[in-house]
């Protein structure tokens, strides 16, 4: 059986890839994708810990499903925002979206 640490290393790598994407990509959709990766890395962690530590309970699965739902909602809102910004500014570059500063 594959040891738990493999899953954790995989999840950490996935999280770092997502994080890098979020910080480094210019495209807002890319940033959104990075966030999805980070969320799913967390999901992998949740499921792995559930399977190896407390397989009797359902807390890990339940959290993973809640994270899915949050991620889906987040993507829906995020994409809608990006589309709206694109319509106004014809751009999806994250650095152009600086209307929130003082």
């Amino acid at each position, binding site marked *: 059986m594959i040891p738990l640490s493999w899953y954790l290393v995989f999840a950490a790598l996935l999280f770092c890839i997502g*994080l890098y994407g979020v910080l480094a990509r210019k495209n807002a959709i890319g*940033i959104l994708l990075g966030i999805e990766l980070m969320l799913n890395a967390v999901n992998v962690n949740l499921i792995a810990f559930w399977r190896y530590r407390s397989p009797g309970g359902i807390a890990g699965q339940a959290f993973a499903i809640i994270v899915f739902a949050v991620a889906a909602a987040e993507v829906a809102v995020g994409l809608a925002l990006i589309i709206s910004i694109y319509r106004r500014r014809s751009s999806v570059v994250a650095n152009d979206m600086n209307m929130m500063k003082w």
Partner: protein
Amino acid sequence: MSTELMIWLLPLPPLLAFFLIVLFTNRYKALSHSLAVGAALLSWLGSMVVFFRAISTEHLGTHPFESVLNWLPTGNNWFQIGIRIDPLSAATLFFVAWTVLMIFIYSVGYHNYGQPAGDHDKKGLQPHGATITDEHGHRHVVPSIEPMYSRFFAFIGLFAFGMYTLVVSNNLLTLFVGWEIMGLCSYLLIGFWYQKPTARAAMIKAFITTRVGDVFMLLGIAYLYSSIGSLSYSDIFKPETLQTLASTPAIGGFLGLSAAGMIGILLFIGTIGKSAQWPLHVWLPDAMEGPTPVSAMIHAATMVSAGVYMVIRMFPLLQAGSEGGHLTPAMSLLAVIGTFTAIFAATIALAQNDIKRVLAYSTISQLGYMIAALGIGAYVAAAFHLFTHAFFKALLFLGSGSVIHGVEHGVLHTGEKVDPQDMFNMGGLRKKMPITFWTFLIGGFALSGFPLITAGFWSKDEILADAFANGHWVVFVTLALAAFITAFYTMRQITLTFLGEPRSDSAHHAQETPWTMTLPLVVLAIFAISLGWAGIAESFPVIGNLIPNFVHEFVGGTLIEMPEALPFTVIPLLVSVVAALGGLTLGWLVYRNQKAGAEDPLKATLGPVHTLLKNKYYFDEIYDTVFVRPAYWLADNFTNQILDRGIIDGILHFIARVASNVGTIFRNYFDKPVVNGFGDFVGEGVKRVGRTIKVIQTGKVQQYLLMALVLVFGAMFYFVFSFFGH
């Protein structure tokens, strides 16, 4: 109604009238005078009932009508006030009620009720007359109604209240209250025409001068209260109380007086002020600035009589300690002051030209008679002269007011610029104003003591007889001389005013006054004659036995020991007859041919003495130099400059400066740096911090995320190292 209750109520109607007029009816002249006269009538009616009940009561002197109320709590006890009608106050009540009522009625006419309002009359000035056009189109100037008509009636109402209170009181405190109310009314009424500077000066002079006496009187009252713990007459006049007071030496052994003598003298100083005796006589002649009914009421019939009434009342106290007919020091003082005032004022009256001022000085002189009579122990004679004098002097004053009124009518008619009060502008008024003339003649003869007919003769004769019988020669001679001078100046006045020919157009056009003024004159004239019959000495030849000596029996009964009636002696009688008739004849001879514009014949005869008399022995000037100017000087230089501006203002300014300096220090070293500094620091600090850190808010989401990451790493390192640190 019980007599006591009625006595309680006697003073109240005029007080009620005062308040009603002041508060409600000030605008309605007819209503106001109806209220005042109605109140006077009510009090008069009550007084008459009380008086007649009093004279029909046996032994009223020992069992007076008396009733008391608890008033002020004094420790375990009460200070009681109450009313008391004994023979003396009953008789006083009689003349007060009559004169007050007559003067109230007279005031209606005097203030020109029923006349049109004046053309240019102002409040606080005498009415100047109104122009009317009759049916033929002629224009006349007629007297105009007093602008402050109601106010006058309110004041005399209050005055009447004061007088009634004084008379019915059974103790010195309420007597003093009435006394001071009258003092206030006197002030208000002398200055009734307050826009005249002379009236203002006169009102202040009267008030301050009488105040000098009142302070001493109050001291006397306080001394008496501290000695015997009561002020009611029945307590004071108990023989044992008097005995104690007479044998106790006064505080500090002052001049070797007894306590009784000291109290008596202090109270008497109050009388000197109120009854205008020398040396506090100066206010009374100036008080003639007031309207004539005021002069009659306050300065002849009632208020100045109150002073004499008070010393007559206090006679047992003054007499306490006298043995074997010797005078006590207090009585000697009375005798000296009274006698001196009698002759002193009479001489001044010789040289006055103002009809009212002559009467004012004669009032001072006659009050001096009463004081002198009391000083030599002639209790009944003093009281008798007080009663008769009140009537004939009120009559004379009202008569003089009527004369002035008549001449003023002439002044308005002719438009002449003459003083309607100067007797040298009059003359021949006998035919123009017959009622005034006859009544004035009766009053004048009563004042001079015209033998047998007039009241003044009987009372004055009794004083002289008393002085003669008890061997007070100086008093006797001086008073007889004063009687002669009195007769002389009275006849001078009558001759100049009524006899001969008019000496001015105004006198020529003088007119008899309305019935409201002549009726009181007639009533008072009846008393000026008939009152004397009540006091004819029984030892008097022929007529002495016809009428009982009512005054002696009745008033004498007030004292515990009834004074003895004097045996008849012919010398004082002859002296007073000669003085009266001689003075009258001489007065007539000297002045009967007085021509218009001619000088007073006395001026040539007396020379510089006349100037001295004319200027009233320069007493006003002396007082001005000795008291008034130093007082002003002291007020200005000491009180104002040094005390007020220097010391008091200095202290205040110092406190203000210290406070101001302390304030500046607080402001500069605490408020500005600390309080303001802290506030500014907080505000500026927040602003600066915000300005400094706003650069990190770039609006770029990735930078935010990067910062969050850095912080998370930082936090993580911190926790990890602090975890391994333990």
